C-alpha cells in the first residue's frame, strides 16, 4: 500500500532542489564569467595566442557579453533572464542556448536510458555473481570485473568496440544515430562505467547483508542459496545503491560527452564539447545547470520511492535523510 508522502517533506526537498539549482547556476556563472582567463579575450583569440588579439575586438566582445558592467549587476541580470528561460545565445549562430540543448536532448536521453537499463542489469548480475557461486575462484574472478570496468577510459572502450564490431566484424555502423543498430555500441560503452559502479556498490552491500544474523537464520531454516539471495538479501542490499542513483545518472550524463564524440552522435554531450571548442559559454552553462537538475530530480524520485521498498523508513523523519 502506498503511503502518501508528507506534503511538508516534499516541499522541503523541493526547496532544497531549487537551492541546488540556484547554486549550480551561480557556480557556473562564477566559473565561466569571472575566472582570470577573460572570456572576451579568450573568445577573440579563438584558441590561439592571447597576446596577438586585437584589443578593439576584445572591447566589442566585452560589451556584447556585458563584461564592462560591475559583476553583481551582470550576475543579477543574467539570473533574471535565466529564470525566464533565457540563458543567452551562441555568439556565432545567435541560436538561444536553451533551444540548442533541448533540440538534441531526446537523442541523449535515448542513449542514456538504454545505457542505464544495460548498466542496471549487468551491474546486478555481476554483483550477485560475485557472492552467489560456490567456487571461491569463480567468485573472485567475477568480483574483479567491476573494478576493472571502473579503471578503463570510456573513450578507449568505445574505440575498441568500434574497431572490432564495426570495422572488423561489420555488425554495427561506426557512426550516426539512425535506428537501433547504431545505438548498441554507444549504449554498451556508456554502460560500462555505470555498470561497474553499480556492481561495486551492490556487491559490497550484498556481502555485508549476507553476514547479518537474519540471513543466518534464513539459512538455518534450510533456504537454498538462491532463496537467500533473491528473497531475502537483495532487497536490503539494494538500498545503499539506491541512494546513489542521483550521482549515477549524473555520471551517465557526463559519460555521453565522450561517448557521443567517439560515435559521432548528435546529443548534449557532443554539443557541450563543441561549445567548449567554440567558447559558447551559454551552452556550457545550460548543460551544467541541466546536470544539476537531473541530479536533483533523480535524488528526489529515489527518496520518494525509498519507503515503498523499505517499509521501516517513514519520510520526513531523520532516518529518511540519513
Amino acid at each position, binding site marked *: 500500500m502506498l503511503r502518501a508522502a508528507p506534503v511538508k517533506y516534499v516541499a522541503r526537498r523541493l526547496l532544497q532542489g531549487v537551492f541546488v539549482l540556484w*547554486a549550480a547556476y551561480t557556480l557556473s556563472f562564477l566559473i565561466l564569467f569571472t575566472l582570470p582567463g577573460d572570456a572576451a579575450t579568450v573568445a577573440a583569440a579563438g584558441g590561439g595566442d592571447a597576446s596577438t588579439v586585437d584589443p578593439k575586438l576584445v572591447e566589442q566582445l566585452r560589451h556584447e557579453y556585458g563584461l564592462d558592467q560591475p559583476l553583481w549587476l551582470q550576475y543579477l541580470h543574467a539570473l533574471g533572464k535565466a529564470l525566464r528561460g533565457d540563458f543567452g545565445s551562441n555568439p556565432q549562430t545567435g541560436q538561444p542556448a536553451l533551444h540548442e540543448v533541448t533540440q538534441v536532448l531526446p537523442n541523449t536521453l535515448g542513449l542514456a536510458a538504454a545505457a542505464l537499463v544495460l548498466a542496471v542489469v549487468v551491474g546486478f548480475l555481476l554483483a550477485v555473481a560475485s557472492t552467489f557461486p560456490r567456487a571461491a575462484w569463480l567468485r573472485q574472478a567475477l568480483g574483479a570485473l567491476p573494478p*576493472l570496468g*571502473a*579503471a*578503463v*577510459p570510456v573513450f*578507449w572502450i568505445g574505440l575498441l568496440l568500434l574497431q572490432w564490431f564495426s*570495422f572488423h566484424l561489420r555488425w554495427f555502423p561506426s557512426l550516426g544515430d539512425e535506428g537501433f543498430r547504431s545505438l548498441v555500441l554507444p549504449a554498451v560503452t556508456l554502460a560500462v562505467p555505470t555498470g561497474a559502479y553499480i556492481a561495486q556498490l551492490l556487491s559490497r552491500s550484498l556481502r555485508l547483508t549476507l553476514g547479518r544474523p537474519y540471513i543466518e537464520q534464513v539459512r538455518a531454516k534450510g533456504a537454498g542459496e538462491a532463496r537467500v539471495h533473491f528473497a531475502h538479501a537483495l532487497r536490503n542490499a539494494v538500498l545503499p545503491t539506491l541512494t546513489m542513483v542521483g550521482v549515477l545518472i549524473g555520471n551517465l550524463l557526463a559519460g555521453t*560527452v*565522450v561517448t557521443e564524440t567517439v560515435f559521432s552522435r548528435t546529443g548534449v554531450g557532443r554539443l557541450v564539447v563543441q561549445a567548449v571548442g567554440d567558447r559558447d559559454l551559454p551552452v556550457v552553462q545550460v548543460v551544467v545547470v541541466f546536470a544539476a537538475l537531473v541530479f536533483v530530480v533523480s535524488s528526489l524520485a529515489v527518496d520518494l520511492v525509498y519507503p515503498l521498498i523499505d517499509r521501516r523508513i517513514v519520510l520526513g523523519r531523520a532516518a529518511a535523510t540519513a
Partner: protein
Amino acid sequence: MSELILNERFTDGSAENTGHAEERPARASGFSRALRGAVTRPGLVISVLVIALVIVWALAPSLFAHHDPLTGNVAERLQAPSAQHIFGTDNLGRDLWARVVYGSAQSLAATFLAVVLALLVGSILGLLAGFLRGWVDDVIMRVMDVVLAIPTVLLSLAIITALGFGTINVAVAVGFASAASFARVMRSEVITISTALYVEAARASGVRWYTVLRRHVLPNSFGPVLSLSALEFGTAVLAISSLSFLGFGAPPPAPEWGALISEGRNYLATSWWLTTFPGLIIVAVVLAANRVSRAFEKNGATR
C-alpha cells in the same frame, strides 16, 4: 567520472573509518610492517612497480626509448608491432613506444598537479569546515554538495571554457572539480578526531587550538586523505586523458596519452595498435593507483 569509484568508498566509508581515532596506538615499526605485508600481497607490489615505472619513464624517458618521439621515418609509417618498434609506428612513422614513454611526463605532471590542487584546496576547506563548525561549516559543505551534484567532467569542461586549452589548464580544471571529495573526507576526519577523548583531554589541559591541530588532527587525518589521493590519482589520469582525447589538452605534436589515442582514432580500421597500447598503459596505471589506494585505506583502518 571521478565520483564513480570515489563515492563507493567514501560516502559510507567515512562513517566506518571513524573507529581508529579513539584508540590510537603508537605506530612505530609502521614501515617494517608494511614491508613484511608487501611480500604477502603480490598485487600490491606489482601496482607499486607499475607506478614507479611510469614515474621513471617521466623522469628519464631516454633510458627506455631509443627512438625520437616527435620525428619519424615516413617510410616506416603505420607499421605493426615488431622487434624494432614494439608498439608499432604511427601515420608519420614515429615509434609509438617512444611516444608513450615520453608522453608519460606530460600525463603524470598534469595528474600530479590535479591531485595536489584537489588535495590542497579540498583539505583546507574541509579543515576549516570541520574545525570551525558553525556557519562556516554550513556554507562550505553546502557548496561542496552542489559541486558534487555536478559531474566532474562537466565542471572541468566549464573551467576549461573559461581558462582556455592546454595541459596545465586541464589539470587545474580537474583538480578544482575534484576538490569536493577531499573536503568531505577531511571534514569528517577532523570532526571525528577533534571530538575524540584524548583531544578533549588535551584541550582541557590547556593545549592551544593550533597545537591540537598540528599534533593531533593533521597527523591522524593523514591516512584517509592519502588513500583518497591515491584513488584520485587514478581518476585524474582517466579525466585528464579523456579531456585530452577530446582535444582540450596538449596541442598535436606533444605525445600525451589521451592525445595519442585520439590520433590513433583515424586509423582504427587498419592500425589497431595505435589506440590499443596507450589505452592499456592508462588502464594499468589506474588499476595500480586504485590498488595502492586500497592498501592505504586498509593500513589506515588497522593502524
